[in-house]
């Protein structure tokens, strides 16, 4: 496991919710940076949660304009990312914008990233999204993201959900898809993500029927307001 985690995927796959939850968990034991590299989405970006991130001990790197400007959509990234990638030994989570177009920003850091001892680049997959429902589609998307980012994906994150309507079946369906993609590309499935509100972690009878106990990753929806 590398201490640089790059989170990519189709837009709407849940990359940002995963990144936020992941960074906050890492920050419980070690110093952790979350880099919001999303320059293609105007809403639902991790920088919106600068308050909760700070309270969780996560150091947020977003644009160069400060918190007051977190609602602008300039395609600009702060220069501090260079220093972070080349020097920092602490945990870094890259929350990358969706699709190959969102992953394009990684290209400028690709050489620095490759000079590190290692990096992990995960593809977040939601099998309920129209363009990532079949293994062929996911394989194609991985190829496209690798092409624009100039980096290699080495892990899959099954985040198959239907927001608050998510069922265990959704997660299992996505797991099947990820396993198929994993076989095709020789990439391991790293996490099965599920909503904590599904109560899988404490619901032993359901859990015992699942073959996926070891890699369950429970998250809370952080960006979506309760009324939505």
């Amino acid at each position: 496991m590398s201490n640089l985690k790059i989170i990519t995927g189709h837009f709407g796959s849940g990359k940002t919710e995963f990144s936020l939850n992941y960074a906050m968990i890492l920050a419980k034991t070690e110093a952790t940076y979350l880099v919001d590299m999303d320059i293609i989405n105007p809403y639902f970006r991790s920088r919106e949660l600068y308050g909760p991130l700070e309270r969780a001990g996560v150091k947020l790197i977003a644009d160069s304009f400060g918190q007051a400007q977190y609602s602008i959509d300039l395609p600009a990234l702060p220069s501090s990312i260079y220093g972070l990638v080349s020097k920092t030994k602490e945990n870094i989570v890259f929350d990358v914008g969706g699709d190959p177009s969102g992953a394009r920003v990684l290209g400028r850091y690709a050489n620095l990233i490759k000079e590190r001892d290692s990096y992990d680049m995960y593809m977040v997959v939601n099998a309920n999204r129209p363009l990532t429902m079949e293994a062929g589609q996911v394989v194609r998307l991985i190829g496209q993201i690798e092409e624009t980012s100039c980096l290699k994906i080495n892990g899959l994150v099954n985040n198959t959900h239907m927001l608050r309507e998510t069922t265990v079946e959704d997660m299992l369906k996505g797991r099947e898809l990820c396993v198929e993609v994993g076989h095709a590309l020789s990439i391991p499935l790293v996490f099965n993500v599920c909503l904590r509100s599904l109560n899988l972690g404490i619901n032993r009878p359901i859990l015992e029927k699942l073959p996926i106990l070891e890699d369950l990753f429970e998250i809370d929806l952080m960006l979506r307001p309760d009324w939505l």
Partner: protein
Amino acid sequence: MAKLLMKGNEAIAEAAIRGGCRYFFGYPITPQNELPEYMSVRLGEVGGVFLQAESEIGAINMVYGAAASGARAMTSSSSPGIALKQEGISYICAAQLPCVIVNISRGGPGLGGIQPAQSDYFQATRGGGNGDYRLIVYAPANLQEAVDITLEAFDISEKYRVPVFIAGDGMIGQMMEPVEIPEGFVSQSAEKDWTTTGTKGQRAPNIINTLYLDPLKLEEHNIKLDNVYKLIEANETRYEADSLEDCDVVCAAYGMTSRIARSSIKIAASSGVKVGMLRPVSLWPFPYGAFDKINPKAKGILCAEMSMGQMLDDVKIGSKGRWPIHFYGRSGGMVPTPDEIAEQLIKIAEGKSV
């Protein structure tokens, strides 16, 4: 068919295609960009045409041209972009051309910001363009409703030869939600004997024009349009109402704000205040008649919007002075919280000034 998890802009685009849209003309602007982007991929697959125009003005006039030849054409934009399209919209209405226009609105005035707002209510319902014209304006409150409305938008527009205008805010465009887009939607496409598709030497030419220099002829044209608008008012008014008859207070809200208000109503209920909900789905024609169902003894109506108070005017017209009218709004891209609106509702029920 199974539910899909879609982003609002994508869901509207896919529903439009299933509803018969084959021509899309647009120009990029946040927060609606996923809509044209989706169209640019999907329209080619169904034998349609996607064209990024040189400007919003170019796009709306391409819609005019395509609609004149009988095609199902659509454009989308966000607030300042819709402002640029107003001249074309007025011309389309004058020429009685059916089409679908989507506004995924953001904070204004001017260039404003990119966060969600409902401050284009006047623009949509009062006309930003010139002349006596109306648009059929629908404001969905969730993605399934946005899909359902968009699916039948072309049918409704062709039936009356009046544009259907979908008023969604940035949140509707950007949020994800499970949706079902039915495969087997059967369009009730209207017979079109007015299109400019060539006479083949067998009939007199159809002329699409908006210039009437003879004032009597122009008045006749206006009366003809007005008769259509009266028909739409009679047939196409849509709203959702809950507990209006026996409530203490009414909350009037549309689109995304109505979602927030639903949470506020639950908060108020826990304080013993019964709040009725009036949610216009069609902003024009506005459901003035629904106000007659409101408890005559209700303490008041709270109009909640993401603006400084625009639908408020229609709420006042509909209430005809029967109840005190209050307003609560956030603007500029700020989204009200359920607690903020609940506090106002409880104050009204307790007879305190808001």
